[in-house]
């Protein structure tokens, strides 16, 4: 079967061993098509962050399968040796706090990823500038992150997540620090970018303001997911 976007089947994650073991994920199934933005909603401690960390290849699941783009990355064990390169090339991360590198200016914060992958500086910066233009922060291209507003920082973080054209973007509470107007703007941008770059996006959120924007929502509770149609309001 040709798979694109994200496919997760029966993903399990157990923290610890023996009596103190915690089953954070008990069999998660999820599918996100390229160009689609889905919401992941659940109460505290339900396993949202754990799921993102498994998908982001920073912790190892206990069992199940994960496919990113056209590549099976996990099937009861990692199928990929270089997880760093996987993260760099296949996955974009957007966090609650933008976590920009404070000693690099906006352009280089974004251009760092292609540079790490071995692309020349000029070309990397060129690509970063294009993204900044698309995200409407090109006028701040040479500013240091500490001089940006919260919304600007978040847009820069999105640009950084997009720069390597990853098939997947994982966003953990990306709108938490923003007011509703800016929060909706961020979601709009994510949708736009998802469509433009054929990226599958998962947005973890508690944020009531943006919940109605998703067309599809996964509810996670006690380590299991179930899918539900969202309102998909803002972007019809």
């Amino acid at each position, binding site marked *: 079967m040709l798979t694109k976007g994200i496919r997760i089947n029966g993903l399990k994650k157990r923290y610890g061993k023996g009596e103190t073991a915690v089953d954070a994920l008990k069999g998660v199934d999820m599918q996100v098509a390229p160009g689609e933005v889905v919401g992941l909603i659940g109460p505290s401690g339900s396993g949202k*962050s754990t799921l*993102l*960390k498994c998908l*982001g290849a*920073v*912790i190892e699941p206990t069992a199940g399968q994960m496919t990113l783009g056209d590549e099976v990355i996990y099937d009861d064990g990692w199928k990929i040796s270089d997880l*760093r*390169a*996987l*993260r*760099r*090339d296949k996955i974009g*991360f957007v*966090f*609650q706090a933008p*976590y920009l*590198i*404070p*000693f*690099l200016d906006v352009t*280089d914060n974004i251009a*760092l*990823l292609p*540079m*790490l*992958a*071995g692309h020349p*500086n000029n070309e990397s910066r060129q690509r970063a500038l294009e993204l900044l233009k698309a995200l409407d922060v090109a006028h701040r291209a040479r500013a*240091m992150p500490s001089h940006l507003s919260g919304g600007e920082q978040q847009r820069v973080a999105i640009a*950084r997540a997009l720069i390597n054209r990853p098939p997947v973007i994982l966003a*953990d509470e990306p709108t938490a620090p923003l007011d509703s107007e800016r929060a909706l703007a961020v979601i709009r941008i994510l949708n736009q970018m998802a469509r433009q770059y054929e990226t599958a996006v998962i947005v973890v959120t508690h944020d009531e303001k943006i919940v109605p924007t998703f067309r599809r929502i996964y509810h996670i509770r006690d380590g299991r997911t179930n899918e539900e149609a969202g309102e998909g309001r803002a972007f019809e």
Partner: protein
Amino acid sequence: MISLAGRDILHAWGKFVFTGVGLGLLIGVTLTMAGVYRGMVDDAKALLDNSGADLWVVQKDTLGPYAESSSIYDDVYRGILGMPGVERAANVTYLTMQVRRGESDVRAMVVGVVPGGPGEPGQPGYLVAGRRITRGHYEAVADIATGFQLGEQIQIRRNLYTVVGLTRRMVSSSGDPMVFIPLKDAQEAQFLKDNDAIVQQRRRTAENPAFNRPGVPGLLNAAIASQSANPYVNAVLVQIEPGYSPDDVAEPIRRWKRLQVYTREQMEKILVGKLIATSARQIGMFLVILAIVSAAIVAFIIYTLTLGKVREIAVLKLIGTRNRTIAFMILQQAVGLGVIGFVVGKISATFWAPIFPKYVLLEPGDAARGFVAVVVICVLASVLAIRAALKVDPAEAIGG
């Protein structure tokens, strides 16, 4: 690829420069300590070079005249002059003392030399002002480090001397500047008793029936005269004729005159190996401690700087930066700190070395060795920080 370390340093340059300057002052002290040692060795060599001698003839079984006291009769030099290969020989005395000048006094090594032309052993090699000692009494040539002026009157023991010439870089092995005076005066100065003691001694001699026999007129006066003269000098400096080797000339003097003879090479071994050896070890201890302190400071600073960047490091790892790149970034910062420190240290040492009372010789070789040591210390010091950085979990960037 851009230099992450460089960008971080530029971003927080204030922090870097301040810690670099602090470290630099420490490195400056370290370089200066090495310079103090070099200065001591150089002073010792200058003492030997400037004495203009090829051989030092001293009392038997002594390491004289600098490391131990030595005294030989002042007519021994005549016999030495007759030995094969000896071109010139001259008596010399050394006496370290406070030389009075008006109200104050200056620590100096008073050297008694036979008045004579340049090239005579013991004489200062060259003068920067004035003339040589020409009269047999009460003239002095002083090293400019004493601060004496031409024409000034200085007091050595009870006699006044006129400074007729100035020389430079004439120092004792402990760095005290030299004051040259005529040999006869120096012999007297070494021996001179105060008036009470002289009266006392005369009385004792007069009371001694061995020296005061009623039937032998003049015996008492002869005895007193011989007691108040000092027929000793500390060493004879010898220049050898061209074509002779120092050892060949030294051997017969040793055998036939029953005196100790040192060549230039042996003398240097005595000065460097014995006289300043303890000071050298003292300085060595300082160097070791300073190196450890510097290493601890670099390690501590780099470690704290790294711990302050845990979140950035987690993000860098999350977005796929290799451990090698992160380790290299920390290493570069440590070495960068070391380089700033070294430059500051070198400049400050160069700046303050001339103000030191004794000679501080900053050798380029020491600076190069110091630089290598600083870099090595910084690399070692960054190990701790690198280990901490490598332990940072990229999952921390995602958070709970």
